[in-house]
């Protein structure tokens, strides 16, 4: 049967790995579970990792109804039993979370893509070589 992600379960797990901070909701509360599903559908590896993690959480007793500590225990168990899938899923969650403008603002970072604007290259300052260029050549003669 085709895997169909449980968005509520995913959002709860995401809130546990990246919890709320300051005035920001957790990664799940920010509505990023749907983004994780969408992006994971574009890559078999991501999709397999998502399904492995969610299936494992779904099989643990009532993840959604559990306390925060119990949810964390459940996630640690998946991390221990399915490390490859868990770590890839976590990489996807992290990366999508850190694509968000509100997260960038909290980090006091401009948040724009590297290109096309780039930055300003400072001038080359040759004085940085003052010490290292005093060293005698030491390459090995053959």
């Amino acid at each position, binding site marked *: 049967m085709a895997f169909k992600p449980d968005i509520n379960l995913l959002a709860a797990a995401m809130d*546990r*790995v*990246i*919890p709320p*901070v300051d005035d920001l909701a957790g990664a799940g509360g920010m509505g990023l579970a749907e983004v994780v599903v969408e*992006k994971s559908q*574009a*890559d*078999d*590896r*991501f999709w397999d990792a998502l399904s492995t993690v969610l299936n494992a959480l779904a099989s643990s007793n009532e993840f959604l109804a559990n306390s925060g500590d119990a949810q*964390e225990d459940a*996630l640690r168990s998946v991390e221990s039993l399915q490390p490859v899938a868990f*770590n890839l899923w*976590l*990489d*996807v969650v*992290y*990366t*999508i*979370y*850190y*694509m968000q403008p509100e*997260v*960038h603002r909290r*980090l006091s*970072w401009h948040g724009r*893509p*590297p*290109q*096309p*604007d*780039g*930055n*300003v*290259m*400072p*001038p*080359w*300052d*040759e004085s*940085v*070589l003052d*010490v*290292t*260029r005093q*060293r*005698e*050549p*030491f*390459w*090995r*003669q*053959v």
Partner: protein
Amino acid sequence: MTNADHNPKRTAEVLIVGAGASGAAVAASLAEDGFDVVCIEQGHWQDASKFPTVKPDYELRAMSSWSINPNKRKLPEDYPVNNDDSAIEPVMFNGVGGSTILWAAHTPRLHPSDFRVKTLDGVADDWPISYEDLEPWYDLNDHVMGCAGIAGDPANPPRSERPMTPIPLGKDGEMLAGAFDRLGWHWWPSDNYVNSTRYGEGRDACNFCGHNMMGCYQRAKSSTDLNYWPRAVDHGAELVTGARVREITTDSSGRATGVNYQDAEGNDQHQAARAVVMAANGVGTPRLLLMSKSENHPNGLANSSGMVGKNLMFHVYAGVTGIFPDHEGEWVGPAANMILSQEFYETDPGRDFVRGYSYQTGRGQGPGSTARGGSPRVPWGADHHAQMQRRFRNTVGLGVIGDDLPEQHNSVSLDPNLTDNSGLPAPKITYTVSDNSRALLDHALIQGQKVLEEAGADEIMVNRFSREAGWHLMGTARMGDDPERSVVDSNGQSHDIDNLFIVDGSVFVTGGAVNPTPTIQAIALRTADYITNEREDLKA
């Protein structure tokens, strides 16, 4: 020219397989010398305006469709690689420009001692050529590719003036340089094939975007689609893209006659040629040679020595990363390298390993990459935000690139089950890390921590080994004077087949402890000049 203009029915004088670092160099050189050149490339031209660094999800794309790892990228032009029995995963890019599209463009040279490790240290083998033999082509390549750097490095022989001044070190680089200075250890600004000023046709200076590993939108990072290929095409070379070579064909005497390939429309074609030059990298070249077995060549082409696919070298990588609270580094500038330290490059009898390593310094990462970390990642859970705040823009690292001496059991072979999307056997990598490499890395990690401590790091994270770091594919069709122990001679010409040449990293005898591309390209240019000067018989 376009693929539609190509007529595979004619006989080329020189047919090149692969349009990357070495294929481009040999194509331009031979075309300029009047040879009729055809190149077959399985990938395509790249449109710089479509590189992912202009998109908000660029860090996610780096994990998927723009991954350095073909097993993750999975583009139609990629072939899968079986890494199940390898400690290191090879990474590469298939397209015009090859891996120079996704490379760091960090371009140091081998040392003279790297060519004489058997004589000096009693290990591996000497090359049949010396540093001095290659030097003129190193210089030529530096000018074509465009090298930013400065002469005078005391760890290397004197070299000619670099075409451009170095890329500025920035705040992170100056901090590390100061630490090296206080320890009395060597460092020098890295040679980079990244423009510090306008250089080359239509190529601007670097705009310090901070993330040029995923293709350079600015065309400031050099790649062979920007320099060698335009020159080659201007001189009549034909570059056929989206075409996958199935085998090198031979006649009854065993000489190469061309290649069989599948064109972009999926049609089987034969391209005849008077000579074949392999430039498909240290995995792709042995794969094709092994796939080209025939009655005359039952163990694969050019393989009477049995050395095709053997002696695979990658370089071993590890690293240390320091956290410098409140540092607020810029995370700008070419991703590659600010400075290079070769304090521990050469053999020291007092250590428990031979040969040595270089330190390379990176320039920080975006937020997603910082969180994913790797040495280790920022923890998930209640402490996540505090740890992320502590690390983002506050980490500076030293990468270690270690000499990886050749061992026959480290190899590329044909996988009996896995195939590419053309049904051709995928390469299988068998590779273990030697005791010498492990000892070398352990030494490097201890010394590297001293540098970061001297620089004022509050905490140091150690990455003992990098698995997805097989950038440098070397040794699998090595050169030598003895046909029983090597595949090609000092000119890159097959010992077995006098009209078959190899010009990629396959021909390396040893790998040194530096990025290999300038050496690969210098070898390719030297082989091209040999063909021009000594093999007039290959002209129609």
